[in-house]
Protein backbone atom coordinates (compact mmCIF):
# COMPACT_ATOMS: atom_id res chain seq x y z
CA UNK A 1 0.00 0.00 0.00
CA UNK A 2 2.88 2.37 0.70
CA UNK A 3 4.70 1.73 -2.57
CA UNK A 4 5.65 5.20 -3.95
CA UNK A 5 5.16 4.13 -7.57
CA UNK A 6 1.38 4.27 -6.96
CA UNK A 7 1.74 8.04 -6.71
CA UNK A 8 2.70 8.10 -10.38
CA UNK A 9 0.56 5.31 -11.77
CA UNK A 10 -2.81 6.26 -10.27
CA UNK A 11 -2.91 9.78 -11.77
CA UNK A 12 -1.87 8.35 -15.18
CA UNK A 13 -4.54 5.68 -14.97
CA UNK A 14 -7.20 8.21 -14.01
CA UNK A 15 -6.00 10.49 -16.82
CA UNK A 16 -6.87 7.79 -19.36
CA UNK A 17 -10.17 7.12 -17.61
CA UNK A 18 -11.11 10.78 -17.72
CA UNK A 19 -10.32 10.84 -21.45
CA UNK A 20 -12.98 8.18 -21.88
CA UNK A 21 -15.59 9.70 -19.56
CA UNK A 22 -15.28 13.28 -20.72
CA UNK A 23 -17.98 14.91 -18.68
CA UNK A 24 -16.97 13.49 -15.26
CA UNK A 25 -13.41 14.77 -15.79
CA UNK A 26 -13.62 17.19 -12.85
CA UNK A 27 -14.56 14.58 -10.29
CA UNK A 28 -11.97 12.09 -11.53
CA UNK A 29 -9.33 14.74 -11.17
CA UNK A 30 -10.51 15.46 -7.63
CA UNK A 31 -10.48 11.75 -6.85
CA UNK A 32 -6.95 11.36 -8.25
CA UNK A 33 -5.60 14.30 -6.26
CA UNK A 34 -7.31 13.06 -3.11
CA UNK A 35 -5.87 9.55 -3.44
CA UNK A 36 -2.43 10.94 -4.13
CA UNK A 37 -2.43 13.15 -1.04
CA UNK A 38 -3.62 10.29 1.17
CA UNK A 39 -0.99 7.97 -0.29
CA UNK A 40 1.71 10.60 0.17
CA UNK A 41 1.22 10.40 3.91
CA UNK A 42 1.75 6.64 3.92
CA UNK A 43 4.93 6.21 1.88
CA UNK A 44 8.08 5.52 3.91
CA UNK A 45 11.69 6.30 3.13
CA UNK A 46 13.55 3.64 1.16
CA UNK A 47 14.11 2.44 -2.39
CA UNK A 48 11.73 0.69 -4.78
CA UNK A 49 12.91 -0.98 -7.95
CA UNK A 50 10.77 -0.59 -11.04
CA UNK A 51 10.75 -2.90 -14.03
CA UNK A 52 12.72 -5.73 -12.45
CA UNK A 53 16.22 -4.62 -13.52
CA UNK A 54 18.45 -3.90 -10.58
CA UNK A 55 20.04 -0.46 -10.52
CA UNK A 56 22.31 0.87 -11.92
CA UNK A 57 20.87 -0.61 -15.06
CA UNK A 58 17.16 -0.37 -14.14
CA UNK A 59 15.38 2.65 -12.69
CA UNK A 60 14.35 2.99 -9.08
CA UNK A 61 12.37 5.40 -6.91
CA UNK A 62 14.40 6.76 -4.00
CA UNK A 63 12.48 8.24 -1.10
CA UNK A 64 14.63 10.10 1.41
CA UNK A 65 13.30 12.37 4.16
CA UNK A 66 13.94 15.31 1.80
CA UNK A 67 11.77 13.82 -0.98
CA UNK A 68 9.13 12.76 1.57
CA UNK A 69 8.70 16.39 2.64
CA UNK A 70 8.54 17.45 -1.01
CA UNK A 71 5.96 14.85 -1.97
CA UNK A 72 3.65 15.55 0.97
CA UNK A 73 3.92 19.31 0.50
CA UNK A 74 3.38 19.35 -3.25
CA UNK A 75 0.53 16.81 -3.25
CA UNK A 76 -1.38 18.56 -0.48
CA UNK A 77 -0.93 21.92 -2.25
CA UNK A 78 -2.17 20.37 -5.49
CA UNK A 79 -5.22 19.11 -3.59
CA UNK A 80 -5.88 22.59 -2.20
CA UNK A 81 -5.49 24.28 -5.60
CA UNK A 82 -7.83 21.84 -7.26
CA UNK A 83 -10.45 22.11 -4.49
CA UNK A 84 -10.28 25.90 -4.60
CA UNK A 85 -10.60 26.23 -8.37
CA UNK A 86 -12.65 23.14 -9.27
CA UNK A 87 -15.01 25.32 -11.29
CA UNK A 88 -12.24 26.44 -13.68
CA UNK A 89 -10.96 22.94 -14.47
CA UNK A 90 -13.20 22.42 -17.50
CA UNK A 91 -11.49 20.17 -20.10
CA UNK A 92 -8.03 20.41 -18.43
CA UNK A 93 -8.55 17.44 -16.07
CA UNK A 94 -6.54 15.07 -18.32
CA UNK A 95 -3.60 17.47 -18.51
CA UNK A 96 -3.71 18.22 -14.79
CA UNK A 97 -3.63 14.52 -13.95
CA UNK A 98 -0.65 13.94 -16.25
CA UNK A 99 1.05 16.94 -14.73
CA UNK A 100 0.42 15.44 -11.26
CA UNK A 101 2.00 12.17 -12.39
CA UNK A 102 4.96 14.03 -13.90
CA UNK A 103 5.49 16.07 -10.71
CA UNK A 104 5.43 13.05 -8.43
CA UNK A 105 7.76 11.30 -10.84
CA UNK A 106 10.26 14.16 -10.78
CA UNK A 107 10.29 14.16 -6.97
CA UNK A 108 10.61 10.42 -6.50
CA UNK A 109 12.78 9.15 -9.32
CA UNK A 110 16.34 8.06 -8.59
CA UNK A 111 17.38 7.92 -12.26
CA UNK A 112 18.64 10.89 -14.24
CA UNK A 113 17.06 9.99 -17.58
CA UNK A 114 13.84 9.04 -15.86
CA UNK A 115 13.93 12.52 -14.27
CA UNK A 116 14.29 13.95 -17.82
CA UNK A 117 11.21 12.09 -18.99
CA UNK A 118 9.05 13.13 -16.03
CA UNK A 119 10.31 16.71 -16.44
CA UNK A 120 9.23 16.63 -20.06
CA UNK A 121 5.79 15.33 -19.10
CA UNK A 122 5.34 18.13 -16.56
CA UNK A 123 6.71 20.80 -18.90
CA UNK A 124 4.48 19.75 -21.79
CA UNK A 125 1.46 19.80 -19.47
CA UNK A 126 2.63 23.27 -18.41
CA UNK A 127 2.79 24.44 -22.05
CA UNK A 128 -0.79 23.37 -22.63
CA UNK A 129 -1.98 24.89 -19.36
CA UNK A 130 -0.27 28.19 -20.10
CA UNK A 131 -2.18 28.36 -23.39
CA UNK A 132 -5.38 28.70 -21.34
CA UNK A 133 -4.93 32.48 -21.27
CA UNK A 134 -5.11 32.57 -25.07
CA UNK A 135 -1.80 34.47 -25.17
CA UNK A 136 -0.20 32.04 -27.60
CA UNK A 137 2.98 33.99 -28.26
CA UNK A 138 3.88 33.71 -24.55
CA UNK A 139 3.18 29.98 -24.67
CA UNK A 140 5.39 29.58 -27.73
CA UNK A 141 8.17 31.56 -26.07
CA UNK A 142 7.85 29.27 -23.06
CA UNK A 143 7.85 26.21 -25.30
CA UNK A 144 10.98 27.22 -27.21
CA UNK A 145 12.96 28.23 -24.13
CA UNK A 146 11.73 25.10 -22.30
CA UNK A 147 12.73 22.76 -25.13
CA UNK A 148 16.16 24.38 -25.53
CA UNK A 149 16.62 23.97 -21.77
CA UNK A 150 15.59 20.32 -21.77
CA UNK A 151 17.84 19.61 -24.74
CA UNK A 152 20.76 21.04 -22.78
CA UNK A 153 19.75 18.88 -19.82
CA UNK A 154 19.55 15.77 -22.02
CA UNK A 155 23.01 16.46 -23.47
CA UNK A 156 24.30 16.90 -19.92
CA UNK A 157 22.98 13.51 -18.73
CA UNK A 158 24.31 11.72 -21.77
CA UNK A 159 27.78 13.22 -21.18
CA UNK A 160 27.53 12.05 -17.57
CA UNK A 161 26.51 8.59 -18.83
CA UNK A 162 29.45 8.70 -21.22
CA UNK A 163 31.85 9.51 -18.35
CA UNK A 164 30.44 7.32 -15.58
CA UNK A 165 28.68 4.61 -17.54
CA UNK A 166 25.52 4.85 -15.39
CA UNK A 167 22.41 7.01 -15.11
CA UNK A 168 21.38 6.11 -11.59
CA UNK A 169 21.78 9.09 -9.30
CA UNK A 170 23.30 7.22 -6.35
CA UNK A 171 25.73 5.39 -8.66
CA UNK A 172 26.69 8.59 -10.53
CA UNK A 173 27.17 10.40 -7.23
CA UNK A 174 29.60 7.65 -6.12
CA UNK A 175 31.63 7.70 -9.36
CA UNK A 176 31.83 11.46 -10.01
CA UNK A 177 34.35 12.43 -7.32
CA UNK A 178 36.87 10.13 -8.98
CA UNK A 179 36.87 12.24 -12.16
CA UNK A 180 38.81 15.50 -12.56
CA UNK A 181 36.76 18.70 -12.38
CA UNK A 182 37.81 19.65 -15.95
CA UNK A 183 35.90 16.72 -17.42
CA UNK A 184 32.89 17.31 -15.21
CA UNK A 185 32.57 21.00 -16.05
CA UNK A 186 30.57 20.77 -19.29
CA UNK A 187 27.95 18.16 -18.21
CA UNK A 188 27.31 19.86 -14.86
CA UNK A 189 27.00 23.21 -16.64
CA UNK A 190 24.52 21.81 -19.14
CA UNK A 191 22.43 20.25 -16.36
CA UNK A 192 22.55 23.49 -14.37
CA UNK A 193 21.20 25.51 -17.31
CA UNK A 194 18.60 22.83 -18.08
CA UNK A 195 17.30 22.88 -14.51
CA UNK A 196 17.88 26.65 -14.20
CA UNK A 197 15.29 27.36 -16.90
CA UNK A 198 12.70 25.46 -14.86
CA UNK A 199 13.80 26.89 -11.48
CA UNK A 200 13.44 30.44 -12.91
CA UNK A 201 17.01 31.72 -12.41
CA UNK A 202 16.95 35.16 -13.89
CA UNK A 203 19.03 35.25 -17.06
CA UNK A 204 17.57 32.02 -18.25
CA UNK A 205 13.93 32.54 -17.31
CA UNK A 206 12.61 35.10 -19.77
CA UNK A 207 9.34 33.17 -20.15
CA UNK A 208 8.11 33.66 -16.57
CA UNK A 209 6.57 37.12 -16.92
CA UNK A 210 4.51 36.24 -19.99
CA UNK A 211 3.11 33.01 -18.57
CA UNK A 212 2.50 33.93 -14.92
CA UNK A 213 1.09 37.40 -15.53
CA UNK A 214 -1.95 36.10 -17.48
CA UNK A 215 -2.68 32.91 -15.54
CA UNK A 216 -6.10 32.57 -13.94
CA UNK A 217 -7.07 31.47 -10.43
CA UNK A 218 -6.33 27.78 -11.17
CA UNK A 219 -3.18 28.01 -13.29
CA UNK A 220 -1.33 30.74 -11.41
CA UNK A 221 -0.98 28.87 -8.10
CA UNK A 222 -0.26 25.70 -10.08
CA UNK A 223 2.74 27.36 -11.74
CA UNK A 224 3.92 29.49 -8.85
CA UNK A 225 3.75 27.03 -6.00
CA UNK A 226 3.49 23.49 -7.37
CA UNK A 227 5.68 23.40 -10.47
CA UNK A 228 8.11 25.95 -9.02
CA UNK A 229 8.27 24.00 -5.72
CA UNK A 230 8.99 20.74 -7.52
CA UNK A 231 11.72 22.33 -9.65
CA UNK A 232 13.37 23.68 -6.48
CA UNK A 233 13.24 20.29 -4.76
CA UNK A 234 14.77 18.66 -7.86
CA UNK A 235 17.46 21.34 -8.02
CA UNK A 236 18.23 20.69 -4.35
CA UNK A 237 18.43 16.90 -4.81
CA UNK A 238 20.69 17.20 -7.85
CA UNK A 239 23.10 19.89 -6.71
CA UNK A 240 23.47 18.79 -3.08
CA UNK A 241 23.64 15.01 -3.18
CA UNK A 242 24.50 14.14 -6.82
CA UNK A 243 26.74 16.64 -8.63
CA UNK A 244 30.02 17.68 -6.91
CA UNK A 245 30.73 21.34 -7.68
CA UNK A 246 34.26 22.74 -7.94
CA UNK A 247 34.96 25.90 -5.94
CA UNK A 248 34.95 28.26 -8.92
CA UNK A 249 31.71 26.74 -10.22
CA UNK A 250 30.07 27.08 -6.79
CA UNK A 251 31.17 30.69 -6.66
CA UNK A 252 29.81 31.41 -10.16
CA UNK A 253 26.47 29.73 -9.49
CA UNK A 254 26.27 31.53 -6.13
CA UNK A 255 26.85 34.83 -7.93
CA UNK A 256 24.14 34.00 -10.46
CA UNK A 257 21.56 33.01 -7.83
CA UNK A 258 22.31 36.10 -5.70
CA UNK A 259 21.97 38.21 -8.85
CA UNK A 260 18.62 36.56 -9.49
CA UNK A 261 17.62 37.26 -5.88
CA UNK A 262 18.58 40.93 -6.03
CA UNK A 263 17.22 41.67 -9.51
CA UNK A 264 14.05 39.71 -8.81
CA UNK A 265 13.32 41.78 -5.68
CA UNK A 266 14.19 45.06 -7.42
CA UNK A 267 11.96 44.23 -10.38
CA UNK A 268 9.15 43.29 -7.98
CA UNK A 269 9.66 46.66 -6.23
CA UNK A 270 8.95 48.43 -9.50
CA UNK A 271 5.80 46.61 -10.57
CA UNK A 272 2.29 48.03 -10.37
CA UNK A 273 0.34 44.80 -11.05
CA UNK A 274 -0.22 42.42 -8.15
CA UNK A 275 0.62 39.29 -10.14
CA UNK A 276 3.80 40.80 -11.58
CA UNK A 277 4.94 41.79 -8.08
CA UNK A 278 4.35 38.22 -6.93
CA UNK A 279 6.01 36.56 -9.92
CA UNK A 280 9.18 38.64 -9.64
CA UNK A 281 9.21 38.07 -5.90
CA UNK A 282 9.00 34.32 -6.52
CA UNK A 283 11.92 34.63 -9.00
CA UNK A 284 13.85 36.45 -6.28
CA UNK A 285 13.03 33.82 -3.67
CA UNK A 286 14.01 31.06 -6.15
CA UNK A 287 17.40 32.75 -6.45
CA UNK A 288 17.79 32.80 -2.65
CA UNK A 289 16.78 29.14 -2.35
CA UNK A 290 19.30 28.06 -5.00
CA UNK A 291 21.97 30.07 -3.18
CA UNK A 292 21.07 28.21 0.03
CA UNK A 293 21.24 24.81 -1.69
CA UNK A 294 24.60 25.65 -3.29
CA UNK A 295 26.09 26.63 0.08
CA UNK A 296 24.70 23.42 1.59
CA UNK A 297 22.04 24.89 3.93
CA UNK A 298 19.36 22.37 3.00
CA UNK A 299 17.19 22.73 6.13
CA UNK A 300 16.94 26.51 5.77
CA UNK A 301 16.18 26.08 2.06
CA UNK A 302 13.40 23.56 2.74
CA UNK A 303 11.76 25.81 5.35
CA UNK A 304 12.00 28.75 2.94
CA UNK A 305 10.48 26.65 0.14
CA UNK A 306 7.59 25.65 2.43
CA UNK A 307 7.01 29.23 3.50
CA UNK A 308 7.23 30.53 -0.05
CA UNK A 309 5.16 27.88 -1.69
CA UNK A 310 2.32 28.09 0.83
CA UNK A 311 2.11 31.89 0.88
CA UNK A 312 2.37 32.07 -2.94
CA UNK A 313 -0.50 29.62 -3.23
CA UNK A 314 -2.81 31.93 -1.25
CA UNK A 315 -1.59 35.15 -2.83
CA UNK A 316 -1.77 33.91 -6.41
CA UNK A 317 -5.23 32.44 -5.90
CA UNK A 318 -6.46 35.80 -4.58
CA UNK A 319 -4.55 37.66 -7.32
CA UNK A 320 -6.26 35.40 -9.85
CA UNK A 321 -9.58 36.31 -8.23
CA UNK A 322 -8.72 40.01 -8.67
CA UNK A 323 -8.46 39.67 -12.47
CA UNK A 324 -11.47 37.37 -12.50
CA UNK A 325 -13.80 39.79 -10.66
CA UNK A 326 -12.31 43.25 -11.36
CA UNK A 327 -10.63 42.54 -14.72
CA UNK A 328 -7.46 44.27 -13.48
CA UNK A 329 -4.85 43.60 -10.85
CA UNK A 330 -3.19 47.03 -10.79
CA UNK A 331 -3.26 47.73 -7.07
CA UNK A 332 -3.97 51.43 -7.52
CA UNK A 333 -7.24 50.72 -9.30
CA UNK A 334 -8.06 48.02 -6.71
CA UNK A 335 -7.65 50.31 -3.71
CA UNK A 336 -9.71 49.23 -0.72
CA UNK A 337 -10.78 45.92 -2.24
CA UNK A 338 -10.35 44.18 1.13
CA UNK A 339 -12.85 46.54 2.76
CA UNK A 340 -15.61 44.37 1.30
CA UNK A 341 -13.99 40.98 1.75
CA UNK A 342 -12.15 41.19 5.07
CA UNK A 343 -11.39 37.51 5.62
CA UNK A 344 -9.80 37.14 2.20
CA UNK A 345 -7.83 40.25 3.06
CA UNK A 346 -6.69 38.76 6.36
CA UNK A 347 -5.54 35.56 4.62
CA UNK A 348 -3.72 37.60 1.95
CA UNK A 349 -2.09 39.82 4.62
CA UNK A 350 -0.87 36.86 6.72
CA UNK A 351 0.64 35.24 3.61
CA UNK A 352 2.24 38.54 2.56
CA UNK A 353 3.65 39.25 6.04
CA UNK A 354 5.03 35.72 6.22
CA UNK A 355 6.92 36.41 2.98
CA UNK A 356 8.49 39.55 4.46
CA UNK A 357 9.48 37.61 7.55
CA UNK A 358 7.35 39.20 10.26
CA UNK A 359 7.88 37.21 13.48
CA UNK A 360 5.66 34.35 14.64
CA UNK A 361 5.20 33.39 10.97
CA UNK A 362 7.12 30.65 9.22
CA UNK A 363 8.82 33.22 6.94
CA UNK A 364 10.58 34.66 10.00
CA UNK A 365 11.68 31.18 11.14
CA UNK A 366 13.11 30.59 7.64
CA UNK A 367 14.99 33.93 7.72
CA UNK A 368 16.38 33.12 11.17
CA UNK A 369 17.74 29.80 9.94
CA UNK A 370 19.20 31.42 6.82
CA UNK A 371 21.13 33.88 8.98
CA UNK A 372 22.32 31.25 11.46
CA UNK A 373 23.30 28.94 8.59
CA UNK A 374 25.28 31.58 6.68
CA UNK A 375 27.00 32.83 9.82
CA UNK A 376 27.89 29.25 10.78
CA UNK A 377 29.37 28.76 7.31
CA UNK A 378 31.47 31.88 7.97
CA UNK A 379 29.85 33.81 5.11
CA UNK A 380 29.14 37.40 6.29
CA UNK A 381 28.37 39.04 2.93
CA UNK A 382 25.24 37.07 2.05
CA UNK A 383 23.36 37.81 5.31
CA UNK A 384 23.79 41.52 4.59
CA UNK A 385 22.31 41.05 1.11
CA UNK A 386 19.49 38.88 2.48
CA UNK A 387 18.57 41.51 5.08
CA UNK A 388 18.73 44.41 2.62
CA UNK A 389 16.49 42.49 0.26
CA UNK A 390 14.09 41.79 3.12
CA UNK A 391 13.77 45.54 3.57
CA UNK A 392 13.05 45.99 -0.16
CA UNK A 393 10.57 43.10 -0.06
CA UNK A 394 8.91 44.51 3.08
CA UNK A 395 8.63 47.86 1.31
CA UNK A 396 6.74 46.69 -1.74
CA UNK A 397 4.62 44.22 0.23
CA UNK A 398 3.51 46.92 2.70
CA UNK A 399 2.88 49.37 -0.17
CA UNK A 400 0.68 46.67 -1.76
CA UNK A 401 -1.17 45.89 1.48
CA UNK A 402 -1.75 49.55 2.32
CA UNK A 403 -3.21 50.21 -1.12
CA UNK A 404 -5.49 47.18 -0.88
CA UNK A 405 -6.66 47.82 2.67
CA UNK A 406 -7.00 51.62 2.92
CA UNK A 407 -8.72 53.41 0.01
CA UNK A 408 -8.70 57.17 -0.31
CA UNK A 409 -6.27 59.77 -1.60
CA UNK A 410 -3.30 61.14 0.39
CA UNK A 411 -4.24 63.53 3.16
CA UNK A 412 -7.73 62.03 3.41
CA UNK A 413 -8.88 59.64 6.15
CA UNK A 414 -9.78 56.45 4.27
CA UNK A 415 -13.49 55.70 4.22
CA UNK A 416 -15.46 52.77 2.90
CA UNK A 417 -17.02 55.02 0.26
CA UNK A 418 -13.65 55.53 -1.46
CA UNK A 419 -13.17 51.78 -1.94
CA UNK A 420 -13.67 50.07 -5.29
CA UNK A 421 -17.26 48.75 -5.80
CA UNK A 422 -18.32 45.80 -3.73
CA UNK A 423 -17.73 42.37 -5.26
CA UNK A 424 -17.38 38.96 -3.64
CA UNK A 425 -13.77 38.00 -4.35
CA UNK A 426 -13.75 34.33 -3.45
CA UNK A 427 -16.57 31.90 -2.73
CA UNK A 428 -17.08 31.13 0.94
CA UNK A 429 -15.41 27.72 0.48
CA UNK A 430 -12.28 29.25 -1.02
CA UNK A 431 -12.06 32.01 1.60
CA UNK A 432 -12.27 29.40 4.35
CA UNK A 433 -9.50 27.33 2.74
CA UNK A 434 -7.30 30.38 2.29
CA UNK A 435 -7.76 31.31 5.94
CA UNK A 436 -6.97 27.79 7.16
CA UNK A 437 -3.81 27.69 5.04
CA UNK A 438 -2.85 31.10 6.40
CA UNK A 439 -3.33 29.82 9.96
CA UNK A 440 -0.98 26.97 9.09
CA UNK A 441 1.64 29.64 8.40
CA UNK A 442 1.10 31.08 11.89
CA UNK A 443 1.14 27.71 13.66
CA UNK A 444 4.22 26.65 11.68
CA UNK A 445 5.97 29.85 12.74
CA UNK A 446 5.14 29.70 16.45
CA UNK A 447 5.48 26.00 17.30
CA UNK A 448 8.98 25.87 15.87
CA UNK A 449 9.99 22.59 17.49
CA UNK A 450 7.07 20.67 16.04
CA UNK A 451 7.77 22.13 12.59
CA UNK A 452 11.39 21.05 12.67
CA UNK A 453 10.39 17.60 13.99
CA UNK A 454 7.89 17.15 11.16
CA UNK A 455 10.35 18.32 8.50
CA UNK A 456 13.43 16.44 9.62
CA UNK A 457 12.08 13.86 12.14
CA UNK A 458 15.55 13.50 13.42
CA UNK A 459 17.84 12.88 10.45
CA UNK A 460 19.66 15.78 8.79
CA UNK A 461 18.27 16.54 5.33
CA UNK A 462 20.58 15.40 2.53
CA UNK A 463 23.48 15.27 4.99
CA UNK A 464 23.28 18.96 5.91
CA UNK A 465 24.85 19.15 9.38
CA UNK A 466 24.70 22.95 9.87
CA UNK A 467 22.81 24.03 13.04
CA UNK A 468 19.33 25.44 12.92
CA UNK A 469 17.23 27.32 15.44
CA UNK A 470 15.27 25.36 17.98
CA UNK A 471 13.56 26.66 21.09
CA UNK A 472 15.85 24.99 23.62
CA UNK A 473 18.73 27.06 22.23
CA UNK A 474 16.98 30.30 22.93
CA UNK A 475 16.56 29.33 26.60
CA UNK A 476 20.20 30.29 27.03
CA UNK A 477 21.72 29.34 30.35
CA UNK A 478 18.47 28.25 32.05
Amino acid at each position, binding site marked *: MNNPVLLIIIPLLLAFVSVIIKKAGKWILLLGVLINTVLAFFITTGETIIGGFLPPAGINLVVTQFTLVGVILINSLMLLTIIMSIDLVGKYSVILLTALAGINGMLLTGDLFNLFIFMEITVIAA*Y*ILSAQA*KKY*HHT*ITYLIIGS*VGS*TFYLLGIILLY*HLTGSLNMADVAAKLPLLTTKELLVPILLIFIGIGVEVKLLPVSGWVKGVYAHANRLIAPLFASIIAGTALFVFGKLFVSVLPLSDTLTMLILVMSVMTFVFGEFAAFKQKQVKEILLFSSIGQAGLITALFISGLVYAAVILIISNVVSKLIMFTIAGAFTEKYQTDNYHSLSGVFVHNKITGIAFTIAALSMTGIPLLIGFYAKLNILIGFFHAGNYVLPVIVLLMTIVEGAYIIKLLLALWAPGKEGQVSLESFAVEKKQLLSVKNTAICLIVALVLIVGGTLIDTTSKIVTNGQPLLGDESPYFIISQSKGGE
Partner: protein
Amino acid sequence: MIRLASLLLLLIGLYGVLTTKNVIKMIISINIMELGVNIFIISVGFITNGVAPNLTEHIDSSLSNFVDPLPQALVLTSIVIGLGITSLGLAFARKMNKKYGTYDLTMIGGMKDE
Protein backbone atom coordinates in the same frame (compact mmCIF):
# COMPACT_ATOMS: atom_id res chain seq x y z
CA MET B 1 33.71 12.28 -36.17
CA ILE B 2 30.01 11.66 -35.63
CA ARG B 3 30.25 13.64 -32.40
CA LEU B 4 31.62 16.65 -34.29
CA ALA B 5 28.75 16.38 -36.74
CA SER B 6 26.21 16.24 -33.92
CA LEU B 7 27.82 19.23 -32.20
CA LEU B 8 27.67 21.15 -35.47
CA LEU B 9 24.01 20.26 -35.90
CA LEU B 10 23.37 21.50 -32.34
CA LEU B 11 25.05 24.82 -33.11
CA ILE B 12 23.16 25.22 -36.37
CA GLY B 13 19.92 24.59 -34.48
CA LEU B 14 20.84 27.19 -31.85
CA TYR B 15 21.81 29.68 -34.56
CA GLY B 16 18.49 29.02 -36.26
CA VAL B 17 16.48 29.77 -33.10
CA LEU B 18 18.46 32.92 -32.42
CA THR B 19 18.16 34.54 -35.79
CA THR B 20 14.66 33.83 -37.12
CA LYS B 21 11.56 35.83 -36.25
CA ASN B 22 9.17 33.30 -37.76
CA VAL B 23 7.83 30.75 -35.26
CA ILE B 24 7.72 27.86 -37.72
CA LYS B 25 11.42 28.35 -38.53
CA MET B 26 12.15 28.38 -34.83
CA ILE B 27 10.43 25.05 -34.32
CA ILE B 28 12.32 23.58 -37.27
CA SER B 29 15.65 24.74 -35.83
CA ILE B 30 14.74 23.19 -32.48
CA ASN B 31 14.16 19.96 -34.38
CA ILE B 32 17.61 20.25 -35.88
CA MET B 33 19.03 20.78 -32.42
CA GLU B 34 17.27 17.72 -31.08
CA LEU B 35 18.46 15.75 -34.07
CA GLY B 36 22.02 16.74 -33.22
CA VAL B 37 21.58 15.59 -29.62
CA ASN B 38 20.03 12.28 -30.71
CA ILE B 39 22.93 11.53 -33.02
CA PHE B 40 25.27 12.30 -30.16
CA ILE B 41 23.38 9.87 -27.94
CA ILE B 42 23.79 7.13 -30.52
CA SER B 43 27.49 7.92 -30.95
CA VAL B 44 28.02 7.45 -27.19
CA GLY B 45 27.03 3.80 -27.40
CA PHE B 46 28.92 3.04 -30.66
CA ILE B 47 31.86 0.56 -30.69
CA THR B 48 33.74 0.11 -33.97
CA ASN B 49 32.62 -3.12 -35.75
CA GLY B 50 30.39 -4.04 -32.81
CA VAL B 51 27.38 -6.36 -33.28
CA ALA B 52 23.72 -5.39 -32.89
CA PRO B 53 22.88 -6.17 -29.29
CA ASN B 54 20.05 -8.71 -29.77
CA LEU B 55 20.46 -12.03 -27.99
CA THR B 56 19.38 -15.04 -29.98
CA GLU B 57 19.93 -18.63 -28.86
CA HIS B 58 22.71 -19.41 -31.34
CA ILE B 59 24.95 -16.39 -30.60
CA ASP B 60 27.36 -16.78 -27.65
CA SER B 61 26.96 -13.56 -25.74
CA SER B 62 30.40 -13.63 -24.06
CA LEU B 63 32.39 -13.74 -27.33
CA SER B 64 31.04 -11.03 -29.64
CA ASN B 65 31.30 -7.41 -28.52
CA PHE B 66 27.83 -5.93 -28.45
CA VAL B 67 27.17 -2.26 -29.11
CA ASP B 68 25.83 -0.65 -25.87
CA PRO B 69 22.02 -1.00 -26.07
CA LEU B 70 21.10 1.61 -23.44
CA PRO B 71 21.62 4.84 -25.47
CA GLN B 72 19.58 3.37 -28.29
CA ALA B 73 16.68 2.90 -25.89
CA LEU B 74 17.13 6.44 -24.63
CA VAL B 75 17.23 7.94 -28.10
CA LEU B 76 13.87 6.35 -28.89
CA THR B 77 12.20 8.21 -26.02
CA SER B 78 14.04 11.40 -26.87
CA ILE B 79 12.83 11.25 -30.47
CA VAL B 80 9.26 10.69 -29.30
CA ILE B 81 9.49 13.66 -26.93
CA GLY B 82 10.93 15.79 -29.76
CA LEU B 83 7.97 14.79 -31.89
CA GLY B 84 5.52 15.70 -29.14
CA ILE B 85 6.98 19.15 -28.60
CA THR B 86 7.13 19.92 -32.31
CA SER B 87 3.51 18.98 -32.87
CA LEU B 88 2.46 21.04 -29.84
CA GLY B 89 4.52 24.00 -31.10
CA LEU B 90 3.03 23.84 -34.57
CA ALA B 91 -0.49 23.65 -33.14
CA PHE B 92 0.14 26.75 -31.06
CA ALA B 93 1.77 28.50 -34.02
CA ARG B 94 -1.33 27.89 -36.12
CA LYS B 95 -3.59 29.20 -33.35
CA MET B 96 -1.36 32.24 -32.95
CA ASN B 97 -1.51 32.92 -36.64
CA LYS B 98 -5.29 32.61 -36.62
CA LYS B 99 -5.52 35.02 -33.70
CA TYR B 100 -2.85 37.60 -34.57
CA GLY B 101 -2.50 36.98 -38.28
CA THR B 102 1.28 36.67 -38.26
CA TYR B 103 3.98 34.20 -37.39
CA ASP B 104 6.36 36.94 -36.32
CA LEU B 105 6.69 37.02 -32.52
CA THR B 106 8.11 40.56 -32.36
CA MET B 107 5.08 41.95 -34.22
CA ILE B 108 2.74 40.62 -31.55
CA GLY B 109 4.70 42.14 -28.69
CA GLY B 110 3.41 45.65 -29.47
CA MET B 111 -0.23 44.77 -30.10
CA LYS B 112 -2.97 44.68 -27.53
CA ASP B 113 -0.91 42.37 -25.43
CA GLU B 114 -1.67 43.99 -22.07
